[in-house]
């Protein structure tokens, strides 16, 4: 991974976040994503890149999982940029049959045969990782070697609300790197450790280097599984997943500083303050689309 060190936010340089307009999954996404990545000048030549989409379960409406068109276009873009290998990996939390999820998502149709491309992180070989942050009670986690061995980890969530955490974006998406074979389906030990604090510990341990959020169609209300589709028409990129998530919240009409884990991440993992986020591409206001939240999370809305 590129950013191995934990740097307090006050010592960090400003982060860059790019919002791009993308009306549908049918449009040509390859050029849009490639050009967006070029802007960030990521050092990926001859590197191993791991894309971590959000694959949750069978999804006939295509609103629960990161869309395969976005995953495929991103993979192609990193290969064009000179990456030696671009793997796709996830460890779905609720359904043990990862192949069934991939079939329902139709990933093979978009990226071709999966055997040497996709890694089921739930059953990958693992390595013990001490948790330096100790935000939760967890002292260590066993993490997949594919994640730990990648030169660049890219979190690729769907733009969704979440009925326990408020939102699930690039930081929460990293729950999927925790292996089910060690922690189960769901990874309930993380819930008992406190979802907010576990998100911090996992991201401090894995340190995703980049984030690309699929906000072409997101999910509002009772997410991350049983919510309602919400067209937002955006792809959001950035080299600081905290800043990307904070920007996503603003696009969703939510206040990032009121999301517990994001507020805490803003002190140690990245920036949530707009003054520290260099915004490029479309302005937040151009694509703002107020997402409905459960009444338990009404305080997150900007109007509240």
């Amino acid at each position, binding site marked *: 991974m590129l950013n191995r060190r934990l740097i307090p936010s006050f010592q960090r340089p400003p982060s860059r976040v790019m919002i791009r307009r993308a009306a549908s999954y049918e449009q040509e996404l390859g050029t849009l994503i490639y050009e967006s990545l070029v802007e960030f000048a990521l050092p990926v030549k001859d590197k191993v890149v791991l894309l971590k989409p959000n694959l949750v*379960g*069978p999804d006939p409406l295509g609103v629960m999982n990161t869309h395969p068109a976005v995953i495929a276009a991103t993979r192609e873009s990193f290969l064009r940029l000179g990456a030696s290998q671009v793997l796709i990996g996830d460890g779905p939390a*609720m*359904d*043990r*049959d*990862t*192949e*069934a999820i*991939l*079939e*329902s998502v139709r990933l*093979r149709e978009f990226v071709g*045969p*999966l*055997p040497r491309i*996709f890694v*089921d992180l739930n*059953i990958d070989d*693992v*390595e*013990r990782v001490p948790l330096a942050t100790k935000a939760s009670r967890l002292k260590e986690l*066993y993490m997949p070697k594919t994640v730990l061995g990648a030169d660049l980890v890219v979190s690729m969530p769907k733009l969704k609300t979440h*009925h326990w955490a408020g939102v699930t974006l690039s930081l929460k998406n990293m729950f999927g790197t925790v292996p089910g*074979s*060690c*922690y*189960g*389906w*769901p*990874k*309930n*030990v993380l*819930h*008992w450790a406190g979802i907010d604090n576990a998100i911090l510990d996992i991201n401090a341990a894995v340190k995703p280097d980049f984030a690309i959020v699929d906000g072409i169609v997101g999910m509002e209300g*009772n997410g991350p599984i*049983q919510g309602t589709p919400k067209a937002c028409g955006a792809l959001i990129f950035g080299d600081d997943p905290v800043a990307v998530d904070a920007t996503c919240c603003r696009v969703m009409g939510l206040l990032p500083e009121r999301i517990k884990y994001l507020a805490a991440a803003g002190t140690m993992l990245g920036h949530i303050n707009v003054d520290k986020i260099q915004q490029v591409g479309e302005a937040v206001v151009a694509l703002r689309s107020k997402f409905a939240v*459960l009444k*338990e999370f009404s305080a997150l809305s900007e109007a509240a």
Partner: protein
Amino acid sequence: MSLLSPANFDGDAIRRGFNFLIAAQLADGSWPSTPEEKTGCWVTSLACWVLAGESEGEKKYSRAIASGLSWVCDDWPRDSSWWQRSLRRLSFAKQQFKYNDSARGWGWTPGTSSWVEPTAFALLALGCRGSREEPEHPSAEKRRKLAELLLYDRMCPGGGWNCGNPEVYGVAGEPLVIPTTWALLALRKYPERRENIQSVAWLEKNLSKIQAPGSYASARIGLAAYGRQRTEDAASAGDLQAKNEFLSNIPVAAWMTLAASNPQNWLAPGKHS
């Protein structure tokens, strides 16, 4: 387990497998999910079940099985404590989930909540409790009853199980094939119960929609355990595997092998060779 089936019997591989299991058992009787880990978890039930499945296993591995089952019986889920149940009654979690919290099963890892699959694994393991010479753990019977209560309580409306959330925020959960199969196997002594009948019917109805070999093999196992043999589409699991060209993972390979065997050969202990 799949290698113990007469059709796939491989003495060498089985011996190596059992040696691995015995060497991997921790001092407290449990098994970790990977050799690096020092804490036991959900695989303990499966290890006990497999060891008891060998024809001589009940005698040969009786101490390993007994200490494993003792660990299982002592492993109460954290959400079952009086304190946690009282907290839940006061918190907003009560509105999120509706379930009978007097029912208790097992979690995937110690100190967490009850879930369908680890509860089913533990029930299967307790059903083959190793050497009859070893006394049963004092809480085994109580735990069996509470676990059966939990499985029935967590069934999705209309039949079938998912990980253990039949309803969240008033919305019914969707069943999944693999948890449904394990729950049906664990509850197979009640084939006439309405819940079992509904769940078998759900599996049968959904068999043709399954797109992956793991779930397909699992559904075949569940149906076969209830006497619903599907010889007419015996090639389907292989077709799905060939189509996917994908994830040659051990659980899927094992489920496919078990699906090709008569469940009576491996569901009950000591009947494998």
